[in-house]
């Protein structure tokens, strides 16, 4: 056991933080929230040049074969800097999905271009019902000639407006898990979309497929084989969102502590008041617990659903704590941070958006309840004691 950052981790974290905090002015970030795509393409180019898009990819696709934990340190830093980017849609959703499930030609077509910042992809999982279960998928794919036709509407699709293709989870049979992934080019006939304006400028889209025809080679993995890949995508998404939430929380706490040191009322810095100190100590407590759970989550993922318990714990905790932390941060700041030109509001909004992504706290507690009731021992971690039954 060694729960510490090694020298490479520290260097990576510091580099990423320094970039994330300096990449964009806060005014530019607010401006980006009003744009169609929501992120700065120049900044994304810089990130890909640093190798961040392909950090975990194999070398043959321009990657550095870094660990998921190392990418999580980068994502944590991006959360800290409130940097909008397509890293979730293009890398964490699509890139890993293609690595997991795609054919060699599909990988060859997309991964190198993702690595170089020349292509953006996204994944359309959810629909208007907001569910994350297989039975919640209604949009359907049927055979049509030599290819397929897709009808239905997806929702909550990240960065769909900017993406070159949308890997869509669609129904190919009647049983709940008869689901298929199809890569739909954004300019395919019958695709229409509209923005779902959301907190923090999150670029969520509703994407409608109206008789969209795709070729047989658009299918990712095999017909009816999509759900296991979708669950892995959700797992990774939740792990990296918990890392982003930790970054968001860290920035909100830093702003608050700095403000509490400087702001003088009643003749003293407000940070000398115990009421304020106790708030700050609890924010810090929740942040550090969330950080350690998040580190464990990204370190635990591997084959299949390895790390399911750890990821669910991390996302449940961060989804609950970090928005609460930003609310307390506003409490300590008072009116000044209610104005948009004060940076705290960026984090207030991003925490709201991030807690909802890839399952909110209740969703992940439901996952944990399922694990608890199906296997008490695996639920209790790697080395459980025998349950103390001498009482009965």
């Amino acid at each position, binding site marked *: *056991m*060694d729960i510490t950052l090694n020298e490479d981790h520290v260097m990576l974290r510091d580099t990423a933080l320094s970039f994330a905090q300096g990449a964009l002015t806060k005014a530019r970030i607010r401006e980006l929230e009003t744009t169609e795509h929501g992120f700065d393409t120049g900044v994304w180019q810089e990130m890909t040049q640093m190798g961040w898009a392909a950090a975990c990819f194999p070398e043959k696709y321009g990657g550095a074969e870094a660990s998921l934990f190392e990418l999580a340190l980068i994502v944590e830093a991006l959360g800290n800097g409130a940097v909008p980017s397509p890293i979730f849609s293009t890398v964490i959703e699509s890139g890993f999905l293609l690595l997991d499930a795609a054919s060699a030609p599909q990988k060859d077509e997309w991964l190198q271009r993702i690595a170089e910042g020349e292509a953006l992809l996204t994944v359309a999982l959810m629909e208007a019902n907001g569910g994350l279960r297989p039975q919640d998928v209604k949009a359907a794919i049927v055979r049509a000639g030599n290819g397929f036709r897709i009808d239905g509407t997806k929702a909550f699709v990240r960065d769909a407006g900017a993406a070159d293709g949308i890997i869509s989870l669609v129904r190919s049979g009647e049983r709940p898990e008869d689901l298929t992934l199809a890569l739909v080019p954004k300019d395919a006939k019958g695709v229409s979309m509209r923005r779902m304006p959301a907190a923090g400028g999150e670029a969520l889209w509703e994407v409608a497929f109206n008789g969209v025809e795709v070729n047989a080679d658009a299918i990712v993995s095999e017909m009816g084989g999509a759900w296991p890949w979708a669950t892995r995508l959700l797992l990774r998404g939740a792990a990296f969102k918990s890392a982003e939430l930790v970054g968001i929380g860290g920035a909100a706490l830093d702003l608050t*502590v700095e403000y509490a040191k400087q702001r003088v009322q009643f003749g003293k810095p407000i940070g000398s008041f*115990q009421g304020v100190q106790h708030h700050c100590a609890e924010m810090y*407590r929740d942040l550090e617990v969330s950080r350690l759970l998040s580190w464990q989550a990204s370190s635990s993922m591997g084959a299949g659903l390895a790390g399911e318990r750890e990821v669910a*714990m991390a996302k449940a905790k961060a989804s609950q704590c970090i928005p609460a932390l930003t609310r307390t941060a506003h409490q300590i700041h008072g009116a000044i941070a209610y104005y948009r030109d004060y940076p705290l509001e960026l984090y207030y909004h991003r925490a709201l958006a991030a807690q909802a992504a890839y399952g909110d706290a209740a969703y992940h507690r439901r996952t944990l309840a399922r694990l*608890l009731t199906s296997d008490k021992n695996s639920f209790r971690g*790697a080395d459980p004691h025998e349950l103390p039954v001498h009482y009965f």
Partner: protein
Amino acid sequence: MEFQLNAEEAAFRDEVRAFLRRELTPEVFAAHRDTTEQGMWTADFTKAFRRKLGAAGYLGMGWPKEYGGGGRSRIYQAILWDEMEWHRAPGLDRSMTYIPNAVMTFGSDAQKAALLPKIICGEISWFVGYSEPEAGSDLANLKTRAVADGDDFVITGQKAFSSDAHMADYGWVAARTDPNSERHKGLSMFIVDMKSPGVTIARHPTLAGWTHHSVHFDNVRVPRSMLVGELHQGWKVVMGAIDFERAALASPGLVNYQFDRLLAWCAHGRDGGERPIDDPVVQDTLVRLAIEAEGGRIMSYWLASLHARGQYPQHETSLALLVKRETARLFDEAAMDLLGPYAPLRAGAPHAQLEGEVEVEYRDHLYFQFAAGGFDITRNVVAQRGLKLPR
């Protein structure tokens, strides 16, 4: 970054588990458990068990080899503490954690030579004489005086809230040596033989059912050789070793035991009734507790990892202790909630659940809220030392 025990660490954990299960059988629990003692075991059994820990090499396993220790990393000590707490073993206290570390850090060569061989065998027990009637949260307000007289110091004063003083062979006592000093200046640390003339111990029954103690020093003569560190520099000694004790107190074993016990209870229907665990509300409660317990567990091993890498976490140990104890209180509260009508039943009552332990702990753990700093004082420490907020 590695969150799992490696093979050698896991083997050590298994060894410790086997030792504890062998030594702490249900028969041993039945014979020696004693809720009138703070440690929940009889004083005799606690002392006997301390010697067994010594004989097994556990007391000195983390000490440097020059003091006869095993030189093993803090990860191993954390595993030992974790397992001892989970198995509710006696002896995980200041005599094993705080005092030996303080003696090694601040003691004279003669003190080390005289005391460490006895400590490592588990032959001696200690009490820590810091708190006083007027010096609780505000420790620097302490009034006990030590006056130089020939080759001795003469100590007079009152120590309060003195855990396990009645079974202690020695006291680790802070006293004011400069009568004109204020606050944390002018204090010195002494090792006091508890058999010295002038030492008297008073008993104070607590609401938890166990008896606490206070210690009165009436012109107690202590040889100058038992001054620890430099004269008037006692505050350094107070602060210097406290993080080690906090790290031990922040062990996750207790909370994991609370979880496992509550889970076992919820998975077990009473008198043919429904199992609580089949109720989604109960599941949600257990899941929320599990997340907090896991956070505390990792935080504890995070501290051990930092120590093992030669780093010196400071306020982080206070934070970890706060997390552990707040989480333990969450479990006390949740157990009250889940046990319903059984919750207030005391051990031995008809239909009492879990041998009445949950009711005992609901009272016992109340001290977590004020001892070793307590929740609010610890929040001050974290805010001021960790976040550098102004005093």
